[in-house]
């Protein structure tokens, strides 16, 4: 069931009695089975579950920008050693990411790695014995599940003030890519669409749990439909993220500059590829392509200006400096695989530097 048709059936519900019963039957199929499980926790006050969950939430501060680009987002702890899951966003485009824990302690956070295809990043703070979600204990959700959303939306909380909590129901589990061209996002996996106003400025990276406080999903970035200007309230199921999180923890998708590998004497450089990046003016200038020579290896491979370089091989690149650093590790003749972000779509290209040299 897509998001739209679900909405439609709700609307019809209010229209005619005949449609009502029809819709009832429809709803009952999807709601009934979960209702039985749900009722267990219904008698408990949410307060206890919330009090247990809030200490796992993190307020993240980083780079902001003009025109309402907030410099904060949300995150949650997934280990007692200070591993934090959050969204991959411009907020992390800085050398100075800070994370404030629920108890008010403020840490400098290190970007451990990111998977831009999933809008996912993992940070690390140097602290121990922290309350956290068990990644392995994350559970799948279904349409009709009652959920709690934890986030620092609008930056309401600061210091030791707890994250905000909202409640709602999973309206539908669907795929975002079905809406390609409507919602501009690189993420094309399944999402939970919620009936609550969860996806606000600063909410991205927050946690969605069931009424037992079990982790279901991560709140996504703000998404607005290009067609009808409606903001989508959605979250990314934990099972979509789990494998990438684990890979990042194991050392994949990390910024290349973290790795110590011996550099070749004769490495690839930008001029050879036919690429010009935007002027490197910030401490982490996002590596946008400014110009591409049409007959260059990059041009032939299909790189376009305004593309954002995201990966070189499996290494995360999140600054012009990082991209140059990454290239400096690659032999001049070798084939180069890079992932680009173009209009919120991820594009993978393979560049053959050798061809250009022969010419």
């Amino acid at each position, binding site marked *: 069931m897509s998001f739209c048709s679900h909405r439609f059936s709700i609307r019809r*519900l209010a229209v005619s*009695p005949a449609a*009502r*019963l029809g819709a*009832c039957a429809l*709803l*009952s199929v999807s*709601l*009934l089975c979960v*209702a*039985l499980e*749900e*009722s*267990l926790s*219904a*008698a*408990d*006050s*949410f*307060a*206890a*579950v*919330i*009090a247990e969950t*809030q200490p796992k939430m993190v307020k993240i501060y980083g780079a902001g920008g003009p025109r*309402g680009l907030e410099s904060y987002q949300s995150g949650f702890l997934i280990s007692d050693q200070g591993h934090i899951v959050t969204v991959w966003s411009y907020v992390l485009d800085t050398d100075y990411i800070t994370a404030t824990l629920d108890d*008010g302690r403020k840490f400098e956070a290190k970007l451990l790695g990111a998977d831009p295809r999933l809008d996912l990043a993992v940070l690390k703070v140097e602290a121990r014995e922290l309350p956290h979600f068990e990644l392995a204990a994350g559970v799948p959700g279904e349409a*009709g599940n009652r959920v*709690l959303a934890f986030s620092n*939306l*609008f*930056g*309401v*909380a*600061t*210091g*030791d*003030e*707890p994250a*905000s*909590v*909202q*409640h709602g129901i999973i309206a539908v589990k669907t795929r975002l890519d079905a809406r390609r061209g409507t919602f501009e996002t690189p993420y094309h996996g399944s999402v939970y669409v919620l009936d*609550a*106003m*969860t996806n*606000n*400025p600063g909410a991205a990276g927050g946690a969605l749990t069931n009424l037992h406080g079990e982790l279901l999903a991560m709140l996504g970035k703000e998404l607005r439909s290009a067609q009808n200007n409606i*903001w989508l309230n959605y979250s990314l199921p934990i099972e979509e993220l789990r494998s990438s999180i684990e890979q990042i923890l194991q050392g994949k998708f990390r910024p290349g500059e973290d790795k110590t590998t011996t550099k070749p004497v004769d490495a690839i450089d930008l001029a050879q590829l036919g690429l010009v990046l935007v002027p490197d003016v910030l401490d982490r200038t996002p590596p946008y392509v400014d110009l591409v020579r049409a007959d260059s290896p990059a041009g032939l491979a299909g790189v376009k200006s305004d593309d954002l370089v995201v990966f070189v091989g499996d290494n995360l690149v999140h600054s012009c400096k990082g991209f140059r650093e990454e290239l400096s590790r690659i032999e001049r003749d070798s084939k180069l695989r890079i992932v680009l972000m173009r209009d919120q779509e991820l594009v993978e290209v393979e560049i053959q530097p050798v061809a250009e040299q022969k010419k």
Partner: protein
Amino acid sequence: MRFLDHLFLPATRGARRTTTCAPLCGLALAIVCSLPATLCAAVDADVLQAEAARVAVVDAACRSTVAIFAKGGQGGGSGVVISADGYALSNFHVTHEAGTAMKCGMADGKLYDAVIVGLDPTGDVALIKLLGRDDFPHAEMADSDKVQVGDWCFAIGNPFLLATDFHPTVSYGVISGVHRYQYPAGSILEYSDCLQADAAINPGNSGGPMFDAAGQLIGINGRGSFEKRGRVNVGVGYAISINQIKNFLGHLKSGRLVDHATLGASVRSDENRRVIVDDVLEESDAFRRGLRYGDELVSFAGRPVNTANGFKNVLGIYPKGWRVAVSYRRKTEAFDVPVRLRGVHRDGELAQLVQSAPQGEGDEPPKPKGGEPPKRGSKPKMKAHAHAKPEPMPEIVKQHFVDKPGYVNYYFNELNRDRVWKALVARGDYSAWQGAWTLTGQNSTAEEFKLEFSDKQASIKLPSGELAIELGGELANHLEPPGSGGLLVALAIWRRLLVQGPANFGDVYYLGTAPLEGREKLVDVLVGGHGDVECNFQFDPDSGHLVAMELIPEEDTDPCELYFSEYREVEGRMLPGRIEVHHGDEFKEVFQCKQYTFAAPPEKQP
């Protein structure tokens, strides 16, 4: 099992046992209502009972909710009645539009006239009074400090001014945060210690009630985090806590423009997450009570202070002039002192701000000052669409409104001043005792004392000596005995108030209510000026007795405090058997009064 758990959710035991219909009903009650009766018969009794309870709670809550329309239909908002005689709460920014008179629609479909009573512009609260009934359905106020994140709540009101038949709209949600601080929007309208909820709050909900699951009033909705998404619900609404409003209610009933408080000191959070005093105003009571630069603020009004934000939060719920307990630490020494709070605004400043507050502002959120990003701040009030010509004030509103400079509505000040006075003289009036009063008895060291005071002079006689003052000229120059802060002047003024009554005493007004140490209930406070000094008089709301008074010879000085107790009947009037004297934060003396004697009134001068 708590009542609220039943309200929105299927009951645990039943839902697991029953057939397919029960959980369906539990999850989507609206659907259940449309099912044929035969199906519903299978519903577990617990579920039906919970549903019925919720319907009853919502119904009762709706009946106390008010749709406020400004005169001439220029915009409006919501409100809630809190007493049978029609006192109702709303937002300053709602009633500001309306001015003195407004029309209030209630769920019974009737439209009532209402008059403005008092305003707290900083806290964005207005007190109005609905007129024409003494049996208005009204909401009960809860203890909003008990509200927890995750508790169910309802917002009721008049979003988008939908309620043409005045029946309000109900939206439900959970409490998302408590003790939230929201920076001032514009020059005033600071929301401190407020409740955050995900119940839909839209334009027009402003001033309306937030109820807990049991239908008790926990706050007044007034603000949402509207940003780039326009002025509609974004799942983040703020309600002014009802506990804050309780602190201000007495003041609001005084028909005045009420001010919030400052400590007279600024604080910062240090790297060890302590709250350190950054600056102290030398004129402040905090300074006189010993607070200095560099001290660590530990608790304020009984609440631990952990961050500078947390301090602003707790400070924001108190009215100007209240005394609260402050604990601070200097190195290893700890201090606990009562501190009298200063006003946020200078005299007249608040009135000016209110005058200049924009009326009928458009969809733009107000611009916060001081470079604070324009976030979290817009108010869900409905914009006025048409400007109708001014209407004459309805007769019933005219009867409840007295215009006087410095007051929102002087009618209510006089009403409360007279109420307090009538309670005091209910057991006999003091006006016959125009001559000198003499009190004799024993002091704290069992010495015989004699106090004598009249319009002209006052004296004290102890075995160790005797002291007398003349009451002409500058009273502030006669603060005898030394160290008392002006005991003799205070006693003379006490007698003067009792004998003359507030109408003849001079300018006496009702300040509102304030806490008094050792008492659970707030006391009523009258303020009167006499010559160059000011006094406040504090009355027990139950017995009507005058329980304390303070002589304030000059602004920013410690008053002479008298505490009256052990009331007994003397010649048909109630008088205290014990008068305790304090000055600064020290106990000075106690007078156990054995005998009162009253001289004959002085002969009238021809």
